[in-house]
């Protein structure tokens, strides 16, 4: 029996390191026909904002080599709808539910965090300072150290649970931001969010996305994401939740070796809605085959 439990900061333990990434797994309900949500280590739900957001105009998606661009723009029904309607339905699942919170100004983040603070049964939130698909706020907070610190400090005051700050990869030195938010009270960091990219239709000579640029995800970004996880792991003391193009158990193990205490599966859920559970089984098999008695022994175990 492999001990699959991992600690992801602030005393929070997950039953296993496999979670699903915000915006790629809806609120979990979309996947109940395919997998047993109870088996997951956790679910990072779709990004939430203070008020309902319609998101960006169509088209919001473009396929790229080994990846995709999205420009959803945080379409969601607002935090109150989540609290009143969605959460009551999904709290029955025996997995950790992580709200992913967003805002245009610091006050929005605070307001959402205060509301999350009141939800019974939620132990942690993911503070998204890295969404590239909104005009205001979003990634702007995550690409400058002072603003990343400011929003983290503000949410720290408003929220008593575990705070996982989601970092943007669109920066010169991600370790600087990671250290900044660590100092500002983050219990963990998650990375990476999507890379700012663009697609053009040479036939129409127009951008494919309504927003011109969008966020790149999928296996294309994996080598960069893995590098960033390794850099951040070596720069901070708080746990790192790694993601970016994880498609199979081998990828997940590589992210753990690079320093991830837990991993998030994103775009891969679109290719195979059962992939999260397959990856969990794959990690377990790897541990068995390699006499790894506790999966946490893989964290940062890269031999350099």
């Amino acid at each position, binding site marked *: 029996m492999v001990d699959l439990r991992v600690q992801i900061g602030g005393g929070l333990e997950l039953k296993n390191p496999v979670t699903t990434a915000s*915006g*790629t*797994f*809806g609120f979990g309900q*979309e*996947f109940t*026909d*395919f997998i047993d949500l109870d088996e997951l280590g956790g679910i990072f739900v*779709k990004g939430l904002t203070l008020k309902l957001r*319609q*998101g960006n*105009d*169509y*088209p*919001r*998606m*473009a*396929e*790229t*080599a*080994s*990846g*995709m661009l*999205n420009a*959803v723009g945080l*379409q969601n029904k607002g935090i109150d709808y989540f609290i009143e309607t969605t959460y009551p339905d999904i709290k029955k699942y025996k997995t950790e539910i992580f709200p992913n919170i967003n805002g245009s100004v610091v006050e929005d983040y605070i307001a959402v965090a205060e509301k999350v603070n009141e939800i019974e049964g939620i132990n942690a939130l993911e503070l998204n300072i890295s969404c590239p698909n909104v005009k205001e706020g979003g990634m702007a907070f995550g690409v400058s150290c002072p603003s990343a610190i400011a929003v983290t400090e503000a949410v720290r005051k408003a929220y008593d649970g575990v705070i996982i700050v989601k970092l943007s990869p669109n920066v010169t030195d991600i370790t600087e931001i990671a250290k900044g938010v660590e100092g500002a009270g983050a219990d963990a960091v998650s990375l990476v969010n999507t890379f700012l990219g663009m697609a053009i239709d040479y036939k129409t000579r127009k951008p494919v996305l309504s927003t011109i640029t969008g966020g790149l995800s*999928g296996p294309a970004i994996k080598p960069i994401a893995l590098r960033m996880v390794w850099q951040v792991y070596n720069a901070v003391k708080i746990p790192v939740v790694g993601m970016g193009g994880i498609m199979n158990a081998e990828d997940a193990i590589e992210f753990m070796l690079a320093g991830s205490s837990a991993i998030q599966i994103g*775009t891969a*859920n*679109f*290719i*195979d*809605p*059962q992939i999260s559970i397959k990856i969990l089984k794959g990690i377990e098999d790897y541990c068995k085959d390699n006499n790894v008695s506790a999966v946490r022994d893989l964290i940062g175990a890269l031999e350099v």
Partner: protein
Amino acid sequence: MKKVQDFKVLEYSWLNDENYILKLIADDEIPEIKPGNFAEIKVPDSADIFLRRPISVLDVNYEKKTISFYIKAIGKGTRKLGQLNIGQTVNIVYPLGNQFVVQDEKKVLIVGGGSGIAPFVLLGRELQSKDVDVTFLMGGRTKNDIFLTDEFSKYGKVEVTTEDGSRGEKGMVTHHSLFKSEFDFDKVYTCGPDPMMKAVAKIAESKGILCEASLENMMACGIGACLCCVTPTHDGNKVVCTEGPVFNTKELAW
């Protein structure tokens, strides 16, 4: 209940150079499929096709465990799906989306064009089983764009229009004489190019009858998880893969 399932290529029927029917066979049970449902097909062995492709279910045989798709090869994915080996494995996620509603219609009109005609085999069969009087109106540029009329004629009357007049009446579907004579349909179903559907919806609305249209869209997941596939409605952005692809055209802000 949605499923991820492996099928094997059973056979191809080529209708012409770029239109074909792909028939797949499974080992496992096939879940119930409703008219309008689609599948997200993983194109096997393809270097540049990352995402699944949404394709309507053309037909299904639950006993023989076969499912078929009518596909028009317009890009790399739909071309590659036409070049698989017999016996090759194809993975699909299905059945997805909502369905064409069949309630207590008496006489309906089904207007289709292009690859949009696929859902109408299952729809025609369901309508027939409920003794609904069905008229199919199929449009295309030339007679070479008109397919499956033999199949449709099993479930109702088939009318055709072509832009060049090479088959049926000459002109667009909305110019068909059907719309000029007494119009006694109580519902219109449509699927095809956007401009066609809009024109059809406009007529239906002007006659005060219900029109359901099945929309196309760029989809990443097909199961409502990514929110990439929205269409604007009078009630905000709706998710085409779960709240659609079939919409009451009155809702749509297109």
